[in-house]
């Protein structure tokens, strides 16, 4: 049990490090121009009858479109940037969350530290007592470790999770993309990164992607499966790198783990004079003893 605790603790131990060294960008409204160069208009003799470049509302995320003759520019509200305000700026460049992760938020100051328990805001530097008040939910018992900031929640059946917050109803059904539960731990024991973590800004799946809400993705770190993978997953930080892993979630009862094999009984092998009459039907058993 001690070893298991130790492993669980170690699975989530990491140091903050500075990843981004880009120069700071314009802090407020950022002007971006469309692509046509200056000489374009005079060379091709654009007339006044040319269509208003702002008429198609090219600026995303409530960006304000400014007509510049044949061109447009977008005034992007924080934290957005890019020609059409389609990008999210890394507002965490100057922020250090020592024992936590810096998240991008859509309200001022546009960043926030999410601290690992028991470290506290604003910069996750100071730890409070890990077991007081008891962070364990559902009647879990908090056990302190020798290291001051470490703790383990001992959960009563059937609850589990770092804070015993996961109940038996927290499971995924046949469509993994519909999972909206609160598991936030990967199968390897690591805690999931928040979908709005600054570490995920370069990833196509994050809290700022199109239709994030529809996929249940937002300012949280619960496992999800927006790409309808075999089960819910999340991004984790491992050895100073962002990786992903499936989550420690069970299929709901009645939902068998997906099997690539047909559920019908295998077709009887045809007689030698009827060879290859049936295509695409393997004979082997669908389950294999491990």
């Amino acid at each position, binding site marked *: 049990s001690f070893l298991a605790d130790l492993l669980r603790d170690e699975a989530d131990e990491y140091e903050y490090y500075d990843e981004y060294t880009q120069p700071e960008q314009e802090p407020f409204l950022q002007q971006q121009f469309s692509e046509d160069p200056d000489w374009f208009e005079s060379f091709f003799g654009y007339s006044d009858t040319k269509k208003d470049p702002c008429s198609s509302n090219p600026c995303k995320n409530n960006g304000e479109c400014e007509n510049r003759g044949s061109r447009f520019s977008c005034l992007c509200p924080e934290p957005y940037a890019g020609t059409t305000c389609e990008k999210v700026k890394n507002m965490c460049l100057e922020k250090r969350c020592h024992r936590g992760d810096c998240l991008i938020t859509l309200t001022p100051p546009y960043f926030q530290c999410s601290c690992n328990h028991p470290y506290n805001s604003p910069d996750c530097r100071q730890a409070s007592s890990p077991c007081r008040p008891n962070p364990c939910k559902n009647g879990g018992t908090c056990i302190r470790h020798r290291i001051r900031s470490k703790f383990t929640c001992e959960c009563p059946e059937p609850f589990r999770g770092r804070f015993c917050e996961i109940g038996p109803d927290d499971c995924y059904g046949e469509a993994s993309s519909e999972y909206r539960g609160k598991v936030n731990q990967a199968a390897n024991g690591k805690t999931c990164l928040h979908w709005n973590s600054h570490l995920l800004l370069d990833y196509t799946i994050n809290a700022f992607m199109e239709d994030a809400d529809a996929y249940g993705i937002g300012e949280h770190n619960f496992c999800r499966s927006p790409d309808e993978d075999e089960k819910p997953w999340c991004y984790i930080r491992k050895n100073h790198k962002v990786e992903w892993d499936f989550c420690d979630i069970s299929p709901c009862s009645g939902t068998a783990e997906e099997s690539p094999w047909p559920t019908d009984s295998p077709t009887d092998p045809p007689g030698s004079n009827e060879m290859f009459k*049936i295509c695409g*039907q393997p004979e082997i058993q669908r389950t294999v003893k491990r």
Partner: protein
Amino acid sequence: TTAGKHPWMASLQMKTSKRNRHFCGGVLIKPCWVLTAGHCIEQPAENLQVVLGKQNLKKREHQEQIFDVEKIIVHSKYKEKDGIPHNDIALLKLKPVDGHCAVETKYVKTVCLPDFFFPAGTDCFISGWGATETDEVSRQLLDANVKLISQRKCNSPTAYDHVLDESMFCAGNLQRPRADSCQGDSGGPLTCIENGSYYVYGLVSWGDGCGLKNKPGVYTQVTTFLSWIKSKIRSESR
């Protein structure tokens, strides 16, 4: 994978003086016919052999069936442009042994040819003895699940930027590094299930690296070549 899970899987091997060398995959569609990738064909038929029912390349296995190749038919429009194979498909006609080609067993079976489309997002299967993270060839037959990717997404600027034509499609994952086919898997099957039967929907063809984000595996679209396959087999069987 386990023996018999992909009984249509073929190993194309080059006959050498020492040990025969696997170089590509293939898929059994008729007792005497194996489908493979056009770019796998660089050798004359007499230098090739096709092994069916194989699991471990390094062992002699009781369930294996070995055939010489009687004829190679590479698609007439097969071409390589900027290193990318187009119309990447070929048929191998097996040379009968004792008057017959493949004999159906638990480990050797034909796969179905699809005359319909599977939608993007369908879970399909790939198999082969190709390169892994650690080795150039896997001695054991490996398999993996991949999802079909829409042509629009795979031809987007962040992926293959309009390189794909109608003879190809992608499968795998665009957002994250996931299971993928690799060198040595070429010509092998991508199968999908419909009504409990496996259909060869793609042939392993090419890709930028292996298992990279935004660069999924590209497969020959078998449905595009359905009439070509049928007409070649029909004319050869007459």
